[in-house]
C-alpha cells in the first residue's frame, strides 16, 4: 500500500538526516529532532489517556460494568489542572500527594525484600566456602566455586565500605575501601564493555533496516538503499547552501558610557 512506501522513504530520510548530525549540526537534523519531540509528547499523552480509559472505564468491574466508584479517581485527576492557576495552585498538590504516597509505600516494601534482604541473605547463605568439591576446578566459566564465593563476599563487603562517608578512610577502613574501589572499577569495566556492545547493536539494527528493507507491490520494487543517495544529496545541498550563506556578524559591543568629568 502507498503508505508503506511513504513510511519506507520517510524512514530512510530521517535516518540519513539524523546521521548527518555526526558531521555537523545542520537544519535537517535539527528539524527531525524537533519533529521527534512533538510526536513523542503526543504519544505519551495518548498512552496515559488510554491507561486511564482501560483502568477506569472498560471492563466488567469498571464504569462499563456499573462500578461508578471509578469516577472518583477521574475527578481527583482533574485537580492537576490547578497547576496553571496561582490562587488555587495548592489543589494541584492533592493528586500528587496520593501518587507520591502510594509510590513511596510501594518502594519501601519492594526495595526491602528484593534489593536489600535478598541480597544480604544470598551473600550469607548461597555462597559455599566449605563442602565437597567446592575448592576443586569445575572448568568452563565457573572455575573454583569456593574461590568465587570468597571473591564475591570480600568484594561486596569492601565495596560497601567505600560508601561509608561517616568516617575517614584511614587504617583498616582505608585498606578496605581501596580494595572496594578496585572491585567497583571491575564493575564499571564490565558495564563499559556491555555498553559498547549495546550501542553497536542499535547501530547494526539501523543498518539492517537500510540494507534489507524493501517495498514490493505489483511490479514495483523499492529497496531502502535506493533511497539513501537521494537523502545524501539533500544533505549535501543543505551543506552547500549553509556554506554559501554569509556568516552572521556578531553584534557590535555597546559603547562604554562616558565617565562623568570630575569638578574641581
Amino acid at each position, binding site marked *: 500500500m502507498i503508505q508503506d512506501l511513504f513510511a519506507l522513504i520517510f524512514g530512510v530520510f530521517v535516518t540519513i538526516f539524523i546521521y548527518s548530525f555526526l558531521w555537523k549540526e545542520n537544519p535537517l537534523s535539527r528539524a527531525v529532532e524537533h519533529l521527534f519531540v512533538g510526536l513523542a509528547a503526543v504519544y505519551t499523552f495518548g498512552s496515559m489517556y488510554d491507561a486511564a480509559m482501560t483502568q477506569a472505564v472498560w*471492563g*466488567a468491574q469498571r464504569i462499563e460494568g456499573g462500578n461508578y466508584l471509578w469516577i472518583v479517581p477521574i475527578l481527583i485527576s482533574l485537580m492537576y489542572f490547578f497547576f496553571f492557576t496561582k490562587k488555587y495552585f495548592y489543589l494541584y498538590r492533592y493528586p500528587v500527594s496520593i501518587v507520591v504516597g502510594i509510590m513511596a509505600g510501594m518502594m519501601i516494601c519492594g526495595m526491602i525484600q528484593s534489593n536489600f534482604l535478598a541480597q544480604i541473605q544470598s551473600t550469607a547463605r548461597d555462597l559455599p566456602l566449605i563442602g565437597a568439591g567446592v575448592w576443586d576446578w569445575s572448568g568452563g566459566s565457573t572455575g573454583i566455586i569456593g574461590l568465587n564465593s570468597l571473591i564475591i563476599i570480600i568484594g561486596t563487603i569492601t565495596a560497601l565500605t567505600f560508601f561509608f562517608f561517616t568516617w575517614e578512610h584511614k587504617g583498616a577502613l582505608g585498606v578496605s575501601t581501596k580494595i572496594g574501589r578496585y572491585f567497583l572499577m571491575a564493575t564499571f569495566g564490565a558495564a563499559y564493555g556491555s*555498553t559498547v*556492545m549495546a550501542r553497536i547493536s542499535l547501530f547494526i539494527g539501523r543498518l*539492517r533496516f537500510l540494507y534489507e528493507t524493501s517495498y514490493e507491490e505489483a511490479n514495483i520494487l523499492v529497496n531502502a538503499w535506493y533511497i539513501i543517495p537521494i537523502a545524501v544529496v539533500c544533505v549535501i545541498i543543505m551543506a552547500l547552501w549553509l556554506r554559501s550563506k554569509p556568516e552572521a556578524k556578531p553584534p557590535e559591543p555597546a559603547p562604554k558610557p562616558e565617565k562623568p568629568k570630575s569638578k574641581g
Partner: protein
Amino acid sequence: MSISEKIARIDRRYLYILVFIVVTIPLLNPLKLPLPIGEHATRVYDKTEALAAGSIVIESIDFGPSTRPENYPQMKAHLFHAKERGLKVVALAFWPSGAPIGEQALREVYDSDFPDIPEYGTSVVYLGYVPGAEVGMQTFADNTATAKGTDHYGTSLTSLPLMQECRSAADFDLWAEWASGTPGEQQVIQFVQGRHGGPSAVPIVVGATAVSVPGMMNFYISGQIYGILNGLAGAGEYEYLLNVKYGYPYAQGPSLDAQSLGHVLILLFIILGNVGYLLTRSKGGKS
C-alpha cells in the same frame, strides 16, 4: 604537527566513518563466525524446556523501538519456544510502546490472522498495554483482572478461559521479562516475585539490552533471575539453540559478525588513543 600529535588529535569524524565502514562490511558479506553458547542463555533455554505442556508463561514486553534490535529477536525466539513446547502464553506490555511490537511478534509466531486463531483465549491471550508501570505489575500479580479488564482487542477477560486459570502470581509458572529500562526486571523482582513467594514460586528469565545485564548479575547469582539473554549475542545464542532442536532460523549471524568487528575497532581506538597520549606525554606536551 609531529606524528605523535597527529595520532593524539585525529578528527572524530574520521572515526565515525571508520565505524560506519567496518560495521557495514559483515552485513553485506557475512563472515559466518562460530558462536560460543554461554551459560546465561543456556539456562533460559533449559528452564523453558523443562516446563510441562500447559504451564502458564507471562511474556512481558517492556521495550520500545529504540532497543528493538536487541530485545525483539530475544522475545520472538522465546515466544516460538513457548508455542512449540505447548505452553500457555499470556503476553502483555507494561510499556505502551511495547504493545504494537508484541502484537507484531505474535502475528509472526502464531499466525498473520492473530488473534483470529482457534487457540486464542485458551492457549494464548494478548492483553496489550497494561497501565501503571510497577504499580500495574503489582496489581497484575495480585489480581490479573484488576490490572486490566479487557484484552488488547476489547474482549472482557471473563470470557477468556486462559484468564480464568491465570488469576494471580500463584498461577504463573514462568515470567519472561523482555526489558530495556524501567519498569523492567528489577520491578518484576520487587513487586511480583518478592511479594509472592520468591524465586521458587515465580521464576524469572530475562532478555535485556547488553547495557543493563551487568547490573542484574547480583540478582542472577542470588537466584532471583534464573537465566539471562544478554543483548544481541544472547538472542543469537538462543536462536542457535532453537535452530538445533526445532529448526528455528538463526538470523543474527551477520549482526554478530558486525558486532565482532565493531568491538575490535573500539579496542583499536582505545589502543590508538593511549598510544597518542603516552607519546605526547613523554614529549612533555598535552594530549
